[in-house]
């Protein structure tokens, strides 16, 4: 079991409330995943800027002077905003790849959670309400976001094993289920040049999508390919800089409910995750069909 929540806003008026709405949904899904929780939130990109979200088990040590050290290394202005065990580094977007690579050298114990123009990922071990409080998720604004509550089955309960997984710029994926052919898919992707941080099955699914999109597929085409190439149980919710997608395996035993109004598209593992959303009583509510790709892009 695991819990997934997602919100893709159509009404910019709701953007300041994105974090609050997602946090409420995430906490409702605690019963489905009390091990760890995570959230990917997409803000409106600032022209020329990119963000690198970095996590460390020793934030006091690793985050001290990190922005300055990185600025010196990539020879560009960098500012940092610390949130508990995570730091969001703001830097010129053309320096993002160099900055991402530099973190491993500068702070070997730290891990890059996400990189991109809009995305920030926060994830930790613990109850969803505690994780949300540590990062003050309630106050975050943005255009769309995805959250996950984890009940681990395929790998250890660690920060790195929590969802969302991000394997490409501004991309992320969360998963309810378990994949049975992730080792063989990982081998294929490694040969194609992808790198992996964990032994987790979901990271393979995220990397699979990144690889497909790198080869030229759009979000919908990449998600379609999961139906033929990935074996196992899955409900995936995927985020890109301007998009939001959902796909379930053909057996579709992992639950999923969607709601759409003029203001938003929402996803929940269960309907109760969505009961406090504005206008839910008159929303179009449906269960996504098995082996069917749904995606929205702005």
């Amino acid at each position, binding site marked *: 079991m695991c819990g997934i929540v997602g919100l893709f806003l159509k009404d910019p008026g709701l953007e300041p409330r994105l974090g609050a709405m997602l946090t409420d949904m995430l906490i409702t899904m605690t019963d489905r995943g009390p091990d760890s929780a995570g959230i990917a939130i997409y803000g409106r990109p600032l022209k020329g800027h990119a963000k690198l979200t970095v996590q460390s088990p020793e934030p006091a040590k690793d985050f001290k002077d990190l922005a300055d050290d990185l600025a010196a290394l990539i020879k560009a202005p960098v500012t940092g905003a610390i949130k508990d065990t995570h730091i969001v580094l703001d830097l010129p977007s053309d320096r993002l790849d160099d900055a991402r690579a530099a973190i491993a050298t500068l702070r070997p114990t730290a891990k890059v959670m996400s990189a991109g123009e809009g995305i920030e990922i926060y994830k930790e071990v613990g109850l969803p309400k505690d994780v949300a409080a540590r990062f003050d998720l309630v106050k975050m604004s943005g255009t769309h976001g995805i959250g996950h509550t984890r009940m681990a089955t395929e790998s250890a309960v660690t920060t790195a094993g929590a969802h969302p997984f991000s394997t490409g710029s501004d991309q992320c994926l969360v998963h309810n289920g378990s994949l049975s052919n992730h080792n063989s898919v990982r081998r294929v992707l490694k040969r194609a040049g992808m790198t992996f941080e964990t032994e987790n099955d979901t990271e393979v699914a995220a990397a699979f999508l990144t690889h497909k999109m790198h080869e030229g597929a759009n979000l919908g085409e990449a998600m379609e390919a999961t139906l033929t190439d990935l074996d196992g149980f899955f409900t995936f919710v995927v985020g890109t800089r301007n998009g939001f997608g959902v796909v379930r395996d053909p057996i579709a035993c992992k*639950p999923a*409910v969607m709601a759409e109004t003029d203001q938003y598209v929402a996803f929940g593992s269960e309907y*109760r995750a969505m009961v406090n959303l504005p206008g839910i009583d008159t929303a179009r509510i449906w269960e996504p069909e098995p082996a069917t790709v749904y995606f929205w892009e702005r």
Partner: protein
Amino acid sequence: MQVFDLEAQGLRALNATLHTLNGQTNETAWEIVNPKGSHAIAVGVDAPVDITVRGSTGYYCAGMNKLATIRVKGSAGPGVAENMMSGTVIIDGDASQYAGATGRGGLLVIKGNASSRCGISMKGIDIVVDGNIGHMSAFMAQSGSMVVLGDAGEALGDSLYEARLFVRGSVKSLGADCIEKEMRPEHLALLADLLKRGEADHLAKPEEFRRYGSARKLYTFNIDNAASY
């Protein structure tokens, strides 16, 4: 009318209260407000009472129901009326996967669509769905009847035993050992009764349906040995 506010009073209090009811109660009409998708609403009721849930429910609503009439004024999550024994459960909206699973008796009516695995392993329950049903419905269904006014998904009635399946629309595919069968007068009469009890006789006529059942090649039933079973 007894009104129970689920948000204020809680699930355990609700089900404990409903479990104290029996055939002698005068409190025969109940309304549950603020269900908000909660799980296990009105599970294990064993009394001839009327219960209306004002909103959508989560997992296992009306599970193991006996005697009661339970109406959900919304949609139902997975496993609604699972293992129902008797009584009636009516869902005004859609039902998620495995609605009516393993049901032994009673009537389940779904006014919207039902998802995958509707009536899986049904053992005597009758199910009437106004809309469509998803894949693997009536998998290993043993007895009882399923009436679908819309379409059926893939692998209908896979590994079917003796349940009777009636579908008005298309069937995407039949499961192993499930075949179309001739509609005889007794089936039309059965359908007419099910449509009436299922509040669907104004929506469809018995002669618009096709009947599906077991080819009896997969399981070991042999009519010559009927007395031995």
